[in-house]
C-alpha cells in the first residue's frame, strides 16, 4: 500500500512562495532571497512530484484521489477540494514543476535589476500554483479554478511591463480572447453536469465519476457532441488554436521566461490536457474528434506559414508554438491521446529551451545595444547574425532544440511527431489528407526554424559595430537551464520509441504508452497499417524536414541575396504572410469594430439615457427614504420604548387576528 497523503504539498509550495514574495517581497529587497525563495518553492513541488511519480510507477493501482475537504455541498452539488493522481496528471505535474523550476532559476539571471522583481516571482509562483491545481484537480471545478488562475497570471505577466502600451494591449487581448474560450468551457461543464444529473441521476463534477458514467449519455449522442464541442472551444482559447490563436503572438510582450513557461511549455497545453482528461467523452463524440483533428491540422499548417516571414525572434517561436499545439490537437483528434501528450512533453522541453535561448540572445543584444546607445530592436533577427562565436552555449542548446523540433531522427520530437503523423494517417479517424497537411507543416517548421538559426547565429554579424564587442555569453544561472533543457530535448523522446523502431532494435517497449495505458487504454485509437507503410511515411516526413533545412541554409546561409529576390518576385504572397494573413485586421473588421460601435451606441444611447436614469432614480429614492428613516432615530429612550410598544401591539395583534 502506498500513501498519497501529501499531494497537497505540490500546489501548496508555490502558493506559499507567491504569498511570501507578494506580501513581503517589497521588504525583503534582496533579489537573491526573492529569487531563491521562488525557485525553491517550485523546486519543492518538483521534488514531491518526482517522489509521487516514481511511487506511482511501482504502484499497481494507478488512480488515486485525495480529498482535503469539502468545498461546497448544496443539495445535489457536492464539490470537494480534491486531487487526482493518475499517470496523466503525474506526467503533467512533473513537466510543470520540472520545467517551471528551470525557468524560475533562469529568471533570477534574466530579470536581474528589473523593477518589481518580487512581483515577477510572486506572479510566476502563483502561476505554477494555478497550473498545478489545473492538472491535479479531481473535479472540473477545481480544474476551472486553475484554468482561470493561469489565465489571470498570464494576464498579469504579459502586462508585466505595464508602462508599455503594447504590453497592456496584449494583456487585455489575451484576457478577452481567453474569456471567449472560458465561456465555452463553462457552458460545456454546466451542460454535462445538468444532463448527467437530471437525466441519469449522477450529479457529479468528479473526473473519475464522469469517466465511469459517461456511457450513460450514449456514444455519438447530440449531448456528448455539444458538450465536447463546448470544451473544445475552451481549449482553442487557452491553447491558441484557430480561430482564437491571435492572442498568443501578442503575448510575447511579456518577459521571455514568461513566454517560455506560460506561452510555450505549460499553460497553452492546458487545452490538450483537458481533452486528455475528458478522453472518455471525446471518444464518444466522433464528430467532435473530427473537428478537433481538422482544426489542429489547419492550425499546424497555417501558423507554420506565418512563421516563415516573421523577423522578430520571439514571434517566430510564438507561431511555431501555435503550430506545434496544432499537432497536439491533431493527435487528440485522431484518437492518439498518448501521442498528443507525448508531443506535449517533448514540446515543453525543446520549446522552453528555444524560448530561453532566444531570451539569452535578447539579453545579450540588449546589453550590447545599450552600451552602444543604439535604438535598434534587440529582438529583430535582422540585427543579429554570427552570434555563434559570442554565445557558444546558447548556440549549441538552441541548435540542438531546433534539430529536435525539425524532427531529425534521434532527437525527441522525431518520435512524438512521427507517432502523431502515423496516427493521422492510419488511425480509424485519420486520413491521408491529415497526414499530408501535417507533413507539409513539418517541412515548413524545419525551414523557418533553420531560417531563425541562420539569421541569428550564422553568417555575417549585422549588429551595429559598436555594440558587437559588448555581446557575450549569459551567466551560469541562464545557461544551466539551457543545458538541462537542451539535453532533455535530445533524450526526452526515448521514453516513447514507436513500436516499429522498437521492434527493429530488439523489443524496446514504448514506456510512455504503457505508462499512460490506464488512462487512455480504453479510448486510444489503434493504428492499422503495415510496418513498411509506417517506415516509408517516416522517411518521407524526415526527407521533407531535411529539404526544409537545406532550403533554409541555401537561402539564408549560402545565397543570402536570395530572400530579397524572392520577396521582390512574390510581393503579394510575402506581404500576406508577413502580415499574418491579415487575420487580426479581419477580426477587427468583423468582430471588434462592430462590437465597439454597438458598445458606443449602448453607452451613449441606452446607458446614459435609460439605465442611468433608472439607477440614479433608484439611488435618489433610496437616499430620500434613508434620510426619512434616519429621523425616526431621535436618540430619546422614551421614543424608542414607544416604538417597541407599538411593535409589540402590532405583533400580538398580528398573531391574534390573522
Amino acid at each position, binding site marked *: 500500500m502506498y500513501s498519497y497523503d501529501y499531494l497537497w504539498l505540490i500546489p501548496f509550495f508555490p502558493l506559499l512562495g507567491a504569498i511570501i514574495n507578494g506580501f513581503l517581497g517589497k521588504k525583503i529587497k534582496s533579489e537573491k532571497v526573492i529569487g531563491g525563495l521562488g525557485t525553491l518553492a517550485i523546486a519543492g513541488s518538483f521534488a514531491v512530484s518526482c517522489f509521487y511519480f516514481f511511487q506511482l510507477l511501482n504502484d499497481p493501482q494507478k488512480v488515486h484521489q485525495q480529498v482535503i475537504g469539502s468545498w461546497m*455541498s448544496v443539495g445535489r452539488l457536492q464539490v470537494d477540494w480534491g486531487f487526482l493522481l493518475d499517470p496523466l496528471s503525474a506526467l503533467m505535474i512533473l513537466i510543470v514543476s520540472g520545467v517551471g523550476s528551470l525557468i524560475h532559476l533562469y529568471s533570477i539571471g534574466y530579470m536581474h535589476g528589473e523593477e518589481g522583481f518580487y512581483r515577477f516571482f510572486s506572479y510566476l509562483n502563483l502561476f505554477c500554483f494555478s497550473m498545478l491545481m489545473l492538472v491535479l484537480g479531481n473535479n472540473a471545478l477545481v480544474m476551472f479554478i486553475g484554468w482561470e488562475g493561469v489565465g489571470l497570471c498570464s494576464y498579469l505577466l504579459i502586462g508585466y511591463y505595464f508602462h508599455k502600451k503594447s504590453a497592456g494591449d496584449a494583456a487585455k487581448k489575451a484576457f478577452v480572447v481567453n474569456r471567449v474560450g472560458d465561456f465555452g468551457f463553462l457552458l460545456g461543464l454546466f451542460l454535462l453536469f445538468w444532463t448527467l444529473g437530471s437525466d441519469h441521476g449522477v450529479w457529479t463534477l468528479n473526473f473519475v465519476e464522469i469517466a465511469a458514467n459517461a456511457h450513460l449519455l450514449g456514444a455519438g449522442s447530440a449531448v456528448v457532441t455539444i458538450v465536447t464541442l463546448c470544451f473544445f472551444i475552451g481549449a482553442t482559447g487557452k491553447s491558441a488554436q484557430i480561430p482564437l490563436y491571435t492572442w498568443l503572438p501578442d503575448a510575447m510582450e511579456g518577459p521571455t521566461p514568461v513566454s517560455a513557461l506560460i506561452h510555450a511549455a505549460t499553460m497553452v497545453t492546458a487545452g490538450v490536457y483537458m481533452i486528455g482528461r475528458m478522453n472518455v467523452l471525446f471518444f464518444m463524440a466522433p464528430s467532435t474528434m473530427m473537428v478537433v483533428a481538422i482544426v489542429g491540422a489547419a492550425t499546424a499548417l497555417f501558423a507554420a506559414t506565418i512563421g516563415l516571414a516573421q523577423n522578430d525572434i520571439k514571434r517566430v517561436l510564438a507561431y511555431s508554438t501555435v503550430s506545434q499545439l496544432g499537432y497536439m490537437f491533431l493527435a487528440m483528434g485522431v484518437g492518439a491521446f498518448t501521442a498528443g501528450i507525448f508531443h506535449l512533453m517533448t514540446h515543453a522541453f525543446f520549446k522552453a529551451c528555444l524560448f530561453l535561448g532566444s531570451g539569452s540572445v535578447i539579453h545579450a543584444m540588449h546589453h550590447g545595444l545599450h552600451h552602444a546607445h543604439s535604438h535598434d530592436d534587440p529582438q529583430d533577427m535582422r540585427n543579429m547574425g554570427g552570434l555563434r562565436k559570442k554565445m557558444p552555449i546558447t548556440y549549441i542548446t538552441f541548435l540542438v532544440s531546433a534539430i529536435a523540433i525539425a524532427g531529425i531522427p534521434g532527437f525527441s520530437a522525431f518520435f512524438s511527431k512521427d507517432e502523431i503523423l502515423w496516427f493521422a494517417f492510419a488511425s480509424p479517424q485519420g486520413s491521408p489528407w491529415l497526414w499530408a497537411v501535417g507533413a507539409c507543416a513539418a517541412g515548413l517548421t524545419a525551414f523557418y526554424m533553420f531560417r531563425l538559426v541562420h539569421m541569428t547565429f550564422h553568417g555575417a554579424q549585422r549588429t551595429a559595430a559598436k555594440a558587437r564587442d559588448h555581446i557575450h555569453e549569459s551567466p551560469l544561472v541562464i545557461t544551466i537551464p539551457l543545458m538541462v533543457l537542451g539535453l532533455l530535448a535530445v533524450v526526452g523522446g526515448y521514453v516513447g520509441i514507436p513500436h516499429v523502431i522498437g521492434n527493429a532494435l530488439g523489443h524496446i517497449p514504448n514506456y510512455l504508452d504503457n505508462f499512460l495505458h490506464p488512462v487512455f487504454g480504453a479510448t486510444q485509437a489503434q493504428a492499422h497499417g503495415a510496418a513498411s507503410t509506417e517506415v516509408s511515411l517516416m522517411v518521407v516526413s524526415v526527407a521533407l524536414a531535411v529539404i526544409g533545412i537545406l532550403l533554409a541554409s541555401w537561402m539564408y546561409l549560402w545565397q543570402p541575396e536570395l530572400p530579397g529576390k524572392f520577396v521582390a518576385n512574390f510581393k503579394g504572397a510575402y506581404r500576406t504572410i508577413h502580415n499574418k494573413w491579415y487575420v487580426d485586421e479581419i477580426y477587427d473588421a468583423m468582430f471588434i469594430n462592430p462590437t465597439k460601435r454597438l458598445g458606443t451606441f449602448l453607452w451613449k444611447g441606452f446607458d446614459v439615457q435609460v439605465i442611468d436614469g433608472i439607477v440614479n432614480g433608484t439611488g435618489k429614492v433610496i437616499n430620500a427614504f434613508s434620510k426619512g428613516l434616519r429621523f425616526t432615530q431621535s436618540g430619546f429612550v422614551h421614543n424608542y420604548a414607544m416604538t417597541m410598544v407599538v411593535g409589540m401591539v402590532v405583533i400580538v395583534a398580528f398573531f391574534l387576528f390573522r
Partner: protein
Amino acid sequence: MENLAQIAMQDVNFGAIMPSLVLVCFGMALLLVTVFSPRGKTTHVAYLSILALVVTGIVSLATWTPAGSLVGNWQEGFGGSVRLDNFATFFNIVFLIAAGLTILMSDDYLKREEYPIGEYYPLILFTTAGAMWMASGTDLMTIFLGLEVLSISLYVLAGFFRRQERSNEAGLKYFLLGAFSTGFLLYGIALIYGVTGTTKVALIGEILANNPSLLTNTMTLAGMGLMSIGFLFKIAAAPFHMWTPDVYQGAPTPITAFMSAGPKAAAFAAFLRVFVIGLAGLQDQWTSLLWILAVLTMIVGNVVAIYQTNLKRMLAYSSIAHAGYALVGMVAANAIGLSGILFYMLAYTFMNLGAFAILVLAGKKGEDNLTLDGFAGFGFKRPFLGVAMSIFLLSLMGIPPTAGFTAKFYIFAGAVEAGYIWLAIIGVLNSAVSLYYYLRVMVYMYFRDPAEDYGWVKMHAGAVLSIVVAIIGVFYLGIIPGAVMEFAKLAIF
C-alpha cells in the same frame, strides 16, 4: 423526603454545564486576581482570560459527538433544564471565538483610552457564560437566567467608560430598553406557562402537539408574540432595533464588536430552540411574522446605513441588516436555512470582529477618528490594515471567496429550497444596496488623498493577531466551508 438527596443528585449533571462552569470559575478567580493586582496593570488578566477561553474551548469540543444534534442525543442536567447538545456546542464555540477576538483587541485599547481596569475581562467571561446558558438552556427559566447574566454584564461593559458621556448614555439606554424588552419576554413566558403548565421547551412542544386546541388559544398566541419580542430585541431586528446604533456607537469599540457577534448569536440560539422545538406547532404563524420582520430589518439596516458617516454607527446598522439576513434562514426553517444561521453567526463573528479590530486600531484616543473622512487614504498609509479592512468589507458585502458569500449563499439557498423565492430575491437586492456603503469605505481608503499620516496607529500584537485570525477565518469559511457546514448540519439534524 428521604430520597430528596438521591433525586437531586441524579438530576444534577455538572457535565451538562461544564463549559460555562469552567468559564465562570475562571471569571471569579480573575476577579480576585484583578483586585489583588496593582492599579493599572491589566495585561496579565487579559492573558489569563484568553487561557480561560482556550480551556473552555477544549472542554466544549470534548463534548462534541456526531449524534448529539438538536433532535438527537445529548447531555442533560438539572432536571432537564440544560442540555449540552451539538447545537449548544457550536454556539459555544462561536461565543468563545467572539470573546477571544474581543479580548485580543482590548488590552492596548483600554490603555490608550486610559481605562486600564481589570474587571473588563471577567465581565466578558460572565457575558460569555450567560450566552452559553442561553444556547444550552432547554427551560424557559434557564434561558431567561442566561439572558439576564449576559445582559447585566453587557450593561456594565457598554457603559464601561464611566467618565465619558457617550458611553454612559449607551449603558443606560441599553439597560432601560433591555429591561423593558425582558419584561415582554417574561410576560410571554408566563402566558406560555399558563397555557401549558410547564417551562420546559421540549414539553411545551409536546403539549401543544397533543392539544391542537391550544394552538389557537389567545394566550398561546399572545405569549408567543411577547416572547418573540424579547429575542427580536436582542438580535436587533426591526422594529426593536432602535437601541442598536446609539448603544453600538457609544460603547467601547471592542465591546461593540462583541455585542454584534456573541450576544446576537446567543439570542439566535435561544430563539431557534424555543421556536423551532417548543413552538413547532405554530410554525406557520411565526414564519409569516418573521418573513415580514426579516424584510423590514434588512431594509431598515441597509437603507439607513447609507446615510451614516461614522463607521461605528454604519457597522451598527449593517449589523441590523445582517440580523435580517440570518432571520431569512429562520423563515426557511429547513436544514440548510437553520444550519445556515449557525454558519452565518460564525462567519459574521469573524468578519465583523475583524472590521471592528481595525476601527480599534485606527481610532485616536477618545475614538476621535471613526468618520469616513478619517479614513481617506488609509489604504496607502497603512497597507496591511487597508487590505485587511477591504477583506472584511468584501466579506460583509458577500463577495466570494469570503465567508460572507458562503454564509449568505446557504441562507438564501435554504430560503429558495423552502419556497421563499421572493424573500431570497429581496435579500439579494438588499445585499446589492449594502455594496454602496461598504464600497464607499474602500473608495475613501484608496481613492482619496490621505488627509493624515496615521502616525498614531500603533500595530499592537494582540489586535494584529485578532485581525490575522479573523482573516484566516474569513477565507477558511469562504473557501472550504464544507467542513464547518457539516458541523452545523450535525448540530441541527
